[in-house]
């Protein structure tokens, strides 16, 4: 993908806090990343690692209260999305930044036809009249590979299968030719054969339309196949970011490397026994003052419980938040 290009989206030090009765929950801590034109950034993490909240915070989709986005900048098109008024944000959302949600069953409105839901962004953002919008909507459905598109506009979501509904969701997100598409676990609810179809579709659309994509998932297999760069989140913070080959061939954070070892493979050697990461993922709460992975980490030493590591650049486009240098097997000098 184009290197050195101007990023379309630049996120700096994003923090999201939920206020609950039992105190503040720091769900997203110091998340920074940028997204270049035409690039696909994979965002990997377990449930509760803050990956969805981070992405939804960008475009003001976290309910506030209880959530509050503290500090941070989200630079998009020369503006800070965290500072613009809700009206402007609404114009950007859907038109210039598209969002595909995880569950195609619940994110389509069951009482409106698919055609209506596809035409809604076209009329709202592009100012199209009904007739033009309908023509464009049919084109979009065709683009995502739904046969007999013009006819199917009149159908309701329940008349579509899961994979087809996810295609509709993608079509809606693509309706206004967004510069950035955020896809939150778009294939998790789907079967592998349908997932393969959707992945092929996204690859194809990316080449055709040239948008930048953030792909949230917990499936490393999916990421390996489509991402240019990968960001790994754990306990509300980014622990490693690297170009996709580097991340898989040369993971530098103990969590990333342990995660890669735990997954069984369909091809190649079969391990007699699965590697495990002992313990449980952290329960988010107060702002972490230590490394969130220390209890499950095989390399943890004293410093890990006293300080929270920050991200250090260790190679081209590769950074990691860890005090231990796995390659040299010694503490990092930071």
């Amino acid at each position, binding site marked *: 993908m184009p290197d050195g290009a101007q990023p379309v989206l630049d996120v700096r030090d994003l923090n999201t806090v939920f206020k609950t009765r039992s105190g503040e929950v720091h769900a997203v801590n110091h998340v920074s990343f940028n997204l270049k034109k035409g690039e696909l950034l994979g965002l990997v993490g*377990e*449930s509760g690692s803050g990956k969805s909240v981070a992405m939804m915070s960008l475009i003001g989709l976290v309910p506030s209260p209880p959530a509050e986005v503290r500090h941070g900048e989200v630079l998009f098109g020369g503006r800070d999305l965290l500072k613009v008024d809700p009206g402007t944000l609404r114009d950007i959302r859907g038109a210039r930044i598209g969002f595909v949600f995880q569950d195609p069953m619940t994110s389509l409105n069951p009482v409106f036809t698919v055609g209506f839901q596809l035409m809604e962004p076209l009329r709202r953002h592009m100012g199209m009249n009904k007739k033009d919008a309908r023509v464009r909507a049919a084109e979009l459905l065709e683009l995502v590979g739904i046969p007999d598109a013009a006819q199917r506009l009149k159908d309701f979501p329940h008349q579509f*299968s*899961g*994979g*087809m509904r996810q295609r509709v969701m993608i079509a809606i997100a693509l309706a206004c030719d967004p510069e950035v598409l955020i896809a939150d676990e778009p294939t998790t609810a789907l*079967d*592998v*054969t*349908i*997932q*393969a*179809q959707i*992945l*092929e579709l996204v690859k194809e659309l990316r080449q055709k339309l040239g948008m930048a994509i953030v792909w949230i998932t*917990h*499936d*490393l*297999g*999916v*990421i*390996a*196949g489509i991402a240019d760069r990968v960001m790994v989140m754990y306990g509300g913070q980014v622990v490693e970011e690297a170009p*996709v*080959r580097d991340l*898989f*061939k040369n993971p530098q954070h103990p969590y990333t490397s*342990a*995660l*890669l070892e*735990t*997954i*069984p*493979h*369909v*091809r190649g050697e*079969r*391990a007699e*026994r*699965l*590697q*495990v*990461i*002992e313990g*449980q*993922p952290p329960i988010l709460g107060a702002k972490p003052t230590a490394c969130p992975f220390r209890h*499950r980490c095989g390399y943890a030493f004293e410093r890990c419980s006293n300080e929270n590591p920050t991200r250090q650049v260790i190679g081209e486009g590769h950074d990691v938040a860890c005090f231990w240098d796995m390659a040299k097997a010694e503490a990092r000098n930071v």
Partner: protein
Amino acid sequence: MFDSAARKLVEVKNLKMHFPIFAGVLRRRVGEVKAVDGVSFDIFEGETLGLVGESGCGKSTCGRAILRLYDLTEGSVKIDGAEIAQTEQAKLRKMRPTMQMVFQDPQASLNPRMRVSAIVGEPLDEHTNMTKAEKLARVHELMDAVGLSRDFANRFPHEFSGGQRQRIGIARALALNPKFIVCDEPIAALDVSIQAQVVNLLEDLQKKFGLTYLFISHDLSMVRHIADRVAVMYLGKVVEVAPRDALYSAPYHPYTKALLSAVPEPDPDFSTESRVILQGDVPSPSNPPKGCNFCTRCPDVSDRCRQTEPEYQEVRPGHFAACHHLNATNYETAAQTAANEEQSVQQGEKK
């Protein structure tokens, strides 16, 4: 694990589970969902049979039907020598201790108002005459076995994480020293790092107690890890059964091939060029296509597939598949092909 000397613990023959569809003002029966439509397989003592397939293919229904959680439409199920397909519930209850189940969603399958000790001990209340102290001792023993601290015995399910809850479900299934456990997607609701923990636990328990598992999952890579033999289901039918390594390295059925090639590989250098991408969706089980169930999506489809249903045949010892094109699509010697034809003729005669 796969040797002919092993005893068959579970024998399923021509199992059918159809659910009626009622419609109209008079709620007349207008059709049926053929969730499981003529499935046969055996599970040998001490082995793990993986049952894989996409959502809606009937794998969960099949697992539940084998334990008689439904009233079967047709077919025979023998567990540990006893025929249970048409047994009445009262009798069946006495046989329950040998067969248990671990459910998919540990959140939904544990009563939120019961303490862990009560959940794990409930089968003991039901099926044994143990005293209170004996029961508590057994509950503690089970909690040790699944790696839960005894201190947690008085806690409620909501106080546990997903992985721990699944351990509670496993402890409950173990309470009566079963021989056979149906694990219905036991890891689907868990995080990647926790899945490995639970799978390792299941393997340890199998060794320790000599358990036999039917492991139902859509996760082909995890099934490859845990199963000794694997059955692949599509639209209510088993399309292929084979020892694990044979199935993963040399699948016969085009659906198995497509399913395996659709699994994304966690390696950025892995080439996806030879990948088989299936077109379309799974047809509705209430109206399966004529002929072979897979004919609407199969890349190797021919006219014959749309007309007649393929025989379920043994392609190699222990390797069964149901497809018309087994010979055309695989690299077999002429001798083997002839042997197969002979076998299918014999099978035809039996019917």
